[in-house]
């Protein structure tokens, strides 16, 4: 085992594997610096802003640490779900931006089976498990539509997933959920949106005194499974092979017996299922229903999270924690008279610097090489 690790180490060094870690980290640092400059240029105090933001991010001990920590982990679960929904197909060479729609599908499914009479009084453990199972199924199917069309008909998955996002959105918020719709709560109850789910469907809290529920545990399991799938199974071996050869029409894997059509459909199903799971966390964890209007956006943040995390399960875990922490700290940042959407700017800057991959590698190699010469 040690031998193997050593060999990987040697050959990864061959391509400067540590550089792969350094680039995102450098991007983050530079982004924070640029963000600070930006704040300063608009007349606010950057140091105060960052102090507040990180203080409330759940990373750093401080007042209300428990609450912030909990919030950070809750966000982590959500971002990780949409992050994986983009990253897994990406590893197979597919560009799927359907996480947004899949997330919504998960939400509405969870909401429905949460208030559905036949399940209403089941014990919590059973009720939630059943809901999760159905959510995975429906979300997976939503993703499978694009996967099927791509595999069997060669239709560009990007455009299909964009379409499906909108179809999900409009059908849910324009038909199912508005007053009078099939899933809407009865007007007499005074509730708008779907009815509230049964208490037995609410996710159990694991840290008393906070909102932190099992969603993060579920997501940790999912991330582990994603990693295992990608690196320890035949499935993952084939998917990664497809991703590396996507430009050349996947000829080598096909000759090697890989059933690319099947794999495309399977990975798209998985991506959809995971994003939907994230959606169910929102309904069963935070809201208790599908509200009349849902602002969403977790889908697109998922892309950023995936890119910062290098499309790797572990990387996505870390980047979701980062973005989750920024999001949590966002409310506090308002005390420095900075709008709470500021972290989104930082997020964008991080991604931008990741895009400048080449530039950063170039700068880093210059800096590090100079150091070496200095020593000699």
């Amino acid at each position: 085992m040690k031998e193997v690790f050593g060999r990987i180490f040697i050959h990864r060094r061959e391509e400067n594997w540590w550089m792969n870690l350094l680039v995102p980290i450098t991007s983050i640092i530079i982004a924070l610096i640029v963000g600070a400059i930006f704040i300063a240029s608009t007349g606010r105090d950057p140091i105060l802003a960052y102090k507040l933001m990180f203080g409330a991010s759940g990373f750093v001990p401080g007042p209300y640490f428990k609450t912030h920590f909990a919030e950070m982990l809750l966000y982590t679960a959500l971002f990780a779900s949409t992050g994986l929904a983009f990253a897994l197909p990406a590893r197979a060479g597919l560009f799927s931006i359907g996480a947004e729609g899949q997330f919504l599908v998960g939400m509405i499914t969870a909401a429905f089976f949460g208030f559905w009479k036949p399940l209403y009084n089941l014990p919590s453990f059973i009720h939630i498990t059943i809901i999760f199972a159905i959510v995975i199924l429906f979300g997976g199917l939503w993703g499978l539509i694009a996967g099927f069309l791509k595999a069997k008909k060669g239709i560009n998955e990007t455009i299909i997933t964009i379409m499906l996002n909108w179809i999900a959105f409009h059908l849910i918020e324009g038909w199912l959920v508005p007053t009078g719709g099939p899933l809407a709560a009865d007007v007499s109850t005074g509730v708008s949106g779907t009815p509230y789910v049964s208490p037995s469907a609410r996710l159990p809290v694991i840290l008393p005194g906070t909102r932190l529920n099992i969603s993060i545990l579920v997501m940790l399991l999912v991330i582990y499974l994603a990693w295992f799938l990608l690196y320890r199974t035949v499935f993952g071996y084939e998917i990664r092979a497809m991703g590396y050869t996507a430009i050349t029409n996947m000829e080598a894997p096909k000759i090697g017996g890989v059933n690319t059509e099947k794999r495309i459909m399977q990975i798209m199903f998985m991506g959809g299922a995971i994003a939907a799971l994230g959606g169910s966390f929102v309904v069963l964890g935070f809201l208790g229903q599908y509200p009349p209007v849902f602002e969403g956006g977790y889908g697109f943040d998922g892309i950023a999270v995936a890119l910062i995390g290098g499309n790797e399960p572990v990387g996505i875990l870390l980047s979701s924690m980062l973005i989750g922490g920024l999001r949590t700290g966002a409310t506090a940042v308002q005390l420095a008279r900075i709008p709470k959407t500021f972290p989104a700017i930082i997020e964008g800057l991080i991604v931008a610097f990741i895009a400048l991959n080449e530039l950063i590698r170039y700068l880093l190699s210059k800096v590090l090489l100079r150091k070496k010469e200095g020593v000699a």
Partner: protein
Amino acid sequence: MNWTFLINQSIAQILDFAAPILFAALGGVISENAGVVNIALEGIMRFAAFFGVWGAFVSKSPWVGLLWGIGIGALLGAFHAYITVKWAGDQIVSGVAINVVAAGGIRYFLEWIFKTTGYSPNVTYFGDPARLINLKFLENIPVLGAFAHLHIFIWLSLILVFVLHFLLYHTVLGLRIRAVGEYPLAAETLGVNVLRIKWFAVILGSIIAALGGVALSLGTMSSFVETGMAAGKGFIGLAAMIFGKWTPIGAMWATFLFASAQVLQFLLQAIAKGVATKIPVGFYLALPYILTIGALIGVVGKAVAPAADGVPYKKEG
């Protein structure tokens, strides 16, 4: 039942709704024909929508607002080009960066400048009845009557379709742009300055998309509204571009298809109010997207992008 009025109103609605999307789609067309993917259309539109209003607010003139919108479009385009052309960076990542910054950054600006959350004050705008381009004589002609009272952006979007078509398919520059998007090395060996052309196409594409953003906030509406503005129009533009097979005219028809949801709702409400109210609004809105998928399945599925689309160009040796 005044059919003429109905038809004209419907077409006018399509054109109005389509205009911002069309700009986004055209922006994408130009950029991708030169081989650079730009999924930041959404973010660029948002930025431009905001800057347009800001400029109009500051100067009390929508024209200045337009200029500001174009300016930010050019700036963002230069940013994207810098990353993707100069440093051959990942085009998707760069585009995502812009979108994400747009999502959060604009709120920041709103609060900083207007001290509000979510919307800006009203400004003078192009859709103002006083500023419409009035062709009264067309009013009562079926179909053409739709063009009787449109604001400038709608005209601009349509004219732009044909301008870009001409540019791409009948000018030297257009030939070179397409060559660069298909096989940059071949163009390079003939002395075409591949990098310069990519810069140009990306910035031009961004500016066009920015026009779409300004069309949103200064066109029919008169202010910037956080939610609902752009709100996916950039991505629909992207889809229109793909569906239109990366040509300006194709993108135009695709955009009209997507915009027709509005029309359907309107038409149905006018014709059969009873039926109309029974169909949930969600179906109308979802219909164009469902139709698109249907069309893609029906028509020969493969949309063929320019051959070197999305591939960063690195000079060898």
